[in-house]
Each structure stands twice: as structure tokens, then as C-alpha cells.
């Protein structure tokens, strides 16, 4: 085997025309995808010339067909790309840079923007055993800048999300936080080995985790970025996290280092997606621990918190793991957030009364002796639920992907494929990559 020790002379230049347009550096995969800007620029000119040639030669059938490809498809072909990668490369508002996200002014509060720099650090689990599951993705969004430059002077320059971000604190968040505190008090009597999976609308999930934070270590699993046309209103989840950031930081410093986890999900992660011309697919699939990981974390009981007992209790992307947890010996139960309400003592309690609250372990026999259960009609079906595997929807393979138009010759992304007049589409034409 002969191996040259030096690259060919023509490759030994000191220019750096290769631009990294995709990169993964995760436990499961590492690598990069590069494009040669120098060749792309050169071929762009050639491409236009070829287009003209094709037009002139368009009398024949073959030439006409070629023109249909080159011109009818705008000299591009479609390519499916991970939405999050597009946002990381070209900005959070990819394809809609003239738009932004909005917050209901009634529930926004002030905050110190400089605290955003600490958001990832302060929301990262302190317990090293839980860190592999933490997803910093959403919390990286506010100050992120595009990795690749905007080459089209016609496209508005993307602004950072932080400029639009406002913390929110809504009535449902207030109730969720109080319910979280009530649950934390209840589960303190259940002993070790209890974990929670909170699967509410993003802001409520964050608020419930804030209520639990004195006793349970939040492990946020939000794996998307907000987008002006996002299917998932991730900006609200982020705004709720920013609101509760001081609470999480304070609780982390006071909590036991071995506190059990609360895995925090956004139930809107699989929101219906039907109109690619009006929506950006920022949906995502939950990545919760596998059954063997649950065993390693010494978790024996899991409480799955859902908004209400209306079917389906569990979303399809977590159903397999929840069922697997049960098969591996964990006791997996569900509880409905709307089973919590103000009791006669003014506190938010399970079942909305002191008696129902005290009968909690009658429904969830994790304390011995278990008290007699007090009926809680809003939670009957949730308490009776047991995990079962829901068949995956084949369309889930497409969750979180966006079809883009790619310049046939240069390989540069022209913009989202879906066309509708307005800024969402080719306003970002000319993006490199």
C-alpha cells in the first residue's frame, strides 16, 4: 500500500473555501458536511449561462425537457433537511427573517437580558448521571447567531431571538407551579426511587418543574427552537423557562445532589402539521431514558403527568419507553394536572380538597400503609391508566424536517421549498450552503 505523505500541489493553497454547513458532535454520531464555496461561486456563473443556452435550444423535445428541469424548477432540486440544523446554520427565523414571535403582553414580565448567558448552565442538571439526558437545545436559541453568512443583500438580516423574548407568567403556569409544589410534598412520603415525566404544554411543564424543584432535579428535554411560523410554540416554553430561571438556580443550590429526576417535555412537540407553506416544522420526538437506563438511575416508580385524563394519556413517541419501563419492573402511573385545584385551606391540592389530598396514596399505593382513597373524578381514568405501546406513525420519520430548494449547480440552499407569497420562502434566497 502506498500512501502519499503530502497533498497534491494544487490542494496545498492557503485558502479556506470549504465551509462547514452541517455538523454533529453527539455521543451517537460525529462528523461534518462541507461545501466548497469557491467552486460554488464559479459554477453559479456557468449555471446561468447554461440556462440561457437551454432556452435558445428549446425547440427540440429533449431541450424542452431540460428547460423544464432548469427553469420550471427554478434551477433547483428539493432536499430534506433537519429544521434545527437549518435554524442553527441560517438563523432561528430561517425563511421568515422579517417576522418574529409574539407574547401576550398581559402576562409578560421584565427581566435582565444578561441572565440569558447563564440559562444553559443554570438549567443543566447538577447530577452527572442525569446530564446525558438534558437537552440544552431550546436554551441555546436566544443569543444564537447564524453560522453561515447571508449572501443575498435583498434578505433582511436575521436578528437574535433574545431581542423579541419576554418572560411569561400565565394563570395556568401559576396553577401548574402550585400543583408541582403539592406533588413534591406528597411524593416526599413515597421514599426513594420515584421519578416524574411531565408532559404538559411547554410553559405548564416548566412551571410544574419549578414547583417540584426543591425535591426533584429538572431534566429538560426540549429539542427544538422557536420559529415565527413554528408548528410548536417553543417561544412560550422558552419564555416560561426564562421566567423561572431564578427559581431553578436557587432550588439547584439548595437541593440534595442525589435528588430524583423530573423529565420535562412539551406536549405540543407533535402538534398537527399540515401546511408547509404556512408552518415551519419545528416538531421533535422525545428522547427519554431507555428501560435499562432507568434501572441504572435506580428509579422504581414513575409518575407521568398529563394535562387531563382525556385520551390519549400518553403521546406515541414516549409510549414505547413507558411500556418498556413497566416491563422492566418499574411502576408507571399517570396523573392529571387538572385534578389539582384550590382546596378549602387556600392551597392547591390533589383532588381540590384536603381530604382528597390526604388520600393520594390510596390511588398511588407508594406509601405504607396506604390511606383509603377519596374519589377524584377528574383523575379516575388517569389513575387507572397503565402504559402500553402505541404503534409509531410512519409520518414521525419526517418530524422536524423541512424541504428546502437547493441550487442544482452550486448546492447552495435557496430557501424553504414551500411557496406562498410573503416572507416565508425565498426571501432568504442566496444563503450559502
Amino acid at each position, binding site marked *: *500500500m*502506498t*500512501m*502519499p505523505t503530502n*497533498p*497534491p500541489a*494544487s*490542494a*496545498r*493553497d*492557503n*485558502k*479556506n*473555501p*470549504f*465551509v*462547514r454547513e*452541517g455538523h*454533529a*458532535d*453527539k*455521543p*451517537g*454520531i*460525529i*462528523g*461534518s*458536511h*462541507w*461545501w*466548497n464555496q469557491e*467552486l*460554488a461561486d*464559479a*459554477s453559479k456563473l*456557468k*449555471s446561468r449561462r447554461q440556462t440561457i443556452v437551454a432556452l435558445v435550444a428549446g425547440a427540440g423535445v429533449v431541450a424542452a425537457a431540460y428547460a423544464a428541469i432548469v427553469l420550471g424548477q427554478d434551477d433547483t*432540486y428539493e*432536499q*430534506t*433537511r*433537519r429544521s434545527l*440544523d437549518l435554524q442553527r446554520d441560517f438563523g432561528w427565523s430561517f425563511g421568515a427573517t422579517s417576522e418574529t414571535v409574539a407574547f401576550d403582553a398581559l402576562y409578560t414580565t421584565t427581566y435582565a437580558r444578561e441572565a440569558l448567558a447563564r440559562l444553559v448552565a443554570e438549567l443543566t442538571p447538577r447530577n452527572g448521571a442525569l446530564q*446525558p439526558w438534558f437537552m440544552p437545545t431550546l436554551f441555546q436559541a436566544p443569543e444564537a447567531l447564524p*453560522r*453561515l453568512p447571508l449572501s443575498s443583500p435583498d434578505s433582511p438580516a436575521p436578528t437574535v431571538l433574545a431581542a423579541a423574548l419576554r418572560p411569561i407568567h400565565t394563570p395556568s403556569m401559576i396553577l401548574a407551579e402550585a400543583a408541582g409544589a403539592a406533588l413534591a410534598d406528597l411524593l416526599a412520603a413515597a421514599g426513594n426511587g420515584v421519578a416524574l415525566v411531565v408532559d404538559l404544554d411547554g410553559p405548564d411543564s416548566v412551571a410544574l418543574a419549578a414547583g417540584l424543584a426543591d425535591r426533584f432535579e429538572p431534566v429538560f428535554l426540549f429539542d427544538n427552537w422557536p420559529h415565527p411560523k413554528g408548528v410548536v410554540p417553543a417561544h412560550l416554553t422558552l419564555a416560561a423557562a426564562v421566567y423561572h430561571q431564578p427559581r431553578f438556580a436557587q432550588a439547584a443550590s439548595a437541593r440534595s445532589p442525589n435528588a430524583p429526576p423530573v423529565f420535562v417535555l412539551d406536549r405540543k412537540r407533535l402538534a398537527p402539521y399540515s401546511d408547509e407553506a404556512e408552518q415551519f416544522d419545528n416538531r421533535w420526538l422525545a*428522547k427519554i*431514558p*431507555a428501560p*435499562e*437506563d432507568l434501572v441504572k438511575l435506580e428509579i422504581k416508580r414513575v409518575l407521568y403527568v398529563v394535562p387531563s385524563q382525556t385520551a390519549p394519556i400518553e403521546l406515541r413517541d414516549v409510549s414505547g419507553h413507558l411500556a418498556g419501563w413497566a416491563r422492566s419492573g418499574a411502576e408507571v402511573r399517570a396523573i392529571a394536572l387538572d385534578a389539582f385545584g384550590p382546596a378549602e385551606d387556600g392551597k392547591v391540592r390533589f383532588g381540590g380538597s384536603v381530604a382528597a389530598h390526604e388520600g393520594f396514596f390510596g390511588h398511588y399505593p407508594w406509601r405504607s400503609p396506604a390511606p383509603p382513597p377519596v374519589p377524584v373524578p377528574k383523575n379516575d381514568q388517569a389513575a387507572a391508566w397503565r402504559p402500553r405501546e402505541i404503534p409509531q406513525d410512519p409520518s414521525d*420519520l419526517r418530524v422536524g*424536517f423541512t424541504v428546502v430548494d437547493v441550487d*442544482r*449547480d*452550486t*448546492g447552495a440552499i435557496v430557501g424553504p421549498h414551500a411557496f406562498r407569497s410573503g416572507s416565508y420562502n425565498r426571501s432568504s434566497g442566496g444563503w450559502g450552503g
Partner: protein
Amino acid sequence: MEKSIFALELCLRFDPTLSAALTPLLQKPGERRSPGEMWTLWSQAARHLLFRKNAWVSGCWDFWDDTLKANRMYPDWIGSLLREDGARATPSGGNEPYRSGADRFMTVTMACLLIRGSDSERKMAYVCEIPESRLWHASTFQRVLEGVPSINFAVVPRATLYMIPRDEGWALTAEDMRGPKFEYLRPIL
């Protein structure tokens, strides 16, 4: 610009030394590279793969001197990187190939477009001129990998190189390899 595509994917028994050798190359910081740096990266990766020929399990490679095909096939080759759909979503557990006998695997994928008619493209066309009966022989993969250092990246419009997994605990299992995500890989003869 007329293009050809060259691509190769190798599945090997998980080798922590290969992972340790390739990871720093793939982690090298910076958003830009020179053709020389790309050549070094690819050549070193090819050399590491050649040194571990006895760990090869299965693989797949392509060379097409057809622009339309190249443009259509290239996204397929980088699909696993873009969608991370070949990578495990959860750890597979520790790799103990010398003790437990639990097989763990890894894949290394390289794909690039080449300007058709360039010296590099013609050299790879020659290297990849293989009779159909020998397409999946180890000697063929060796020949193709040995041809990689002849690629001059000044004539490469796009290139990708990635490894699954990065960390030992996320190595692919035999069940993963039997799944639909890797069904295109052929046993190496």
C-alpha cells in the same frame, strides 16, 4: 459544472482505538477548511480504516459519473448525518468486545462530489472500475480506500465524513445493524 459522486460506508466491529483516532480529526474546530486540510482529513480516515481491515463487517460504495445521479444521490449519502437517523437515540451500553462477547459496531461514511473530467475524478473512476462479481470483496474496498488520497479537494464541490457513534457507550448493536437503516450495507466477502 458536470459532477461525479464517490461515496463509501464501512461498518466495522467497534474499535475504541479507531474512534479515538477519528474523533479529534472530526472535532477540529473552525467553520472553514482548505482543500489541503480536507485532503489530510480524508486521507487519515482512509488510512485508519485500511489499518483495521480485519474489523470490517459490511459496507457499501458508489461511484457514478452522472451529474443528475450525483446530485440526487449525494443527499442520500449525507442523510444519516443530517437526520442522525443511523445513530442511536439512546446509549447501547458499554462495549466489552473482549469480555462479554456482545457485538458492537460502528460505521464510517465518506462521500463527495467531484468535478467530472478532472484528474482526481478520472483517477477515482479508474479505481472504482470493478467487475460486478467483485463489488463487495474486501480487496475492492481496500483498492477504493487506497484511492482516496488521490483526490484533490480543489475539485470537490461538496464532501462529508462522519462516524457513528462518537462514544463507545453508543455503539451500534447487532440489532441496529439488522434494522432498515442499514439494510443497504452488504457483507464484505
